[in-house]
């Protein structure tokens, strides 16, 4: 027993016609597509652009990094603390310098003191 012959698809001729009717891409479209291809390829083959570091990072680099930043912060805090607490010795010294309230004795020192002979001669 043989299979009945397969009925031809009534649309086959039309599909075949449409397939052969395809118009190939024109030169203009080919050029547009190839220009896109070249541009995209150049883009991902280009070396990455150097990224400019933010201002804070550049400042840290100038002063020597975080250890220097820690020193700078300590010095700053110490300055603030001195300004606020005003140690007594510092206040006296600064007041004396500003108001001239300095008491002391003038002593003439003999340049030969201690060099003279016990018998009084040089």
């Amino acid at each position: 027993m043989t299979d009945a012959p397969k009925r031809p698809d009534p649309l086959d001729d039309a599909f075949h016609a449409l397939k052969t009717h395809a118009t190939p891409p024109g030169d203009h479209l080919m050029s547009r597509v190839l220009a896109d291809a070249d541009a995209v390829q150049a883009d991902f083959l280009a070396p990455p652009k150097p990224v400019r570091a933010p201002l804070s990072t550049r400042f840290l680099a100038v002063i020597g990094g975080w250890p220097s930043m820690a020193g700078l912060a300590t010095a700053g805090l110490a300055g603030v603390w001195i300004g606020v607490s005003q140690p007594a010795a510092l206040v006296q010294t600064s007041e004396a310098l500003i108001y001239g309230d300095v008491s002391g004795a003038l002593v003439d020192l003999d340049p030969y003191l201690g060099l003279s002979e016990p018998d009084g001669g040089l």
Partner: protein
Amino acid sequence: MPFDDINAAPTEALLQLYANGDPEASRALTRRLLPRVLSHAERLLSNRAEAEDVAQEAMLRLWKIAPDWRTGEAKVTTWLYRVTGNLCTDRLRRRRGVGLDEVPEPEDDALSPADQMQENARAQALQAALARLPERQRQAVILRHIEEVGNPEIAEIMNISVEAVESLIARGKRALTTDLAAQRDELGISE
């Protein structure tokens, strides 16, 4: 790579060459893929100018994805048909509201010999009938019968099951047969 070798290379390998900077790879890929992408878009949209824009956009997306392409995960042609289909769907949605009468007819070649004229007439009638099909049926019929893509690959392209593809194609062909019945004798289409 020599010209003959590059034309014989598999599409995935060409894409890898393109990603690695080979300037000839894009030429070979364009020669191989652009006619298929353009033809598919033209069948879906029934408009040459729009199809050219879609084809250029689909190829641009291929160039951009090349460095990240993972060989073995999908076929380049499957991916391209899917992108082309999605781009055409976007265009058709934007076109919504334009009546079927306003959809341009394919160009006519008035100087063809008689047999060529009948071939052209068949092609034009089928293209017009395809344009009247629902979008998903049209895409499935075109992929199966014009692009000659297998049902499992169509299922992957359209992101549906193989059974759904078969159903879309069967309904699409029934609608086309009915649509073209009136012109059967004129177009020389067999019963």
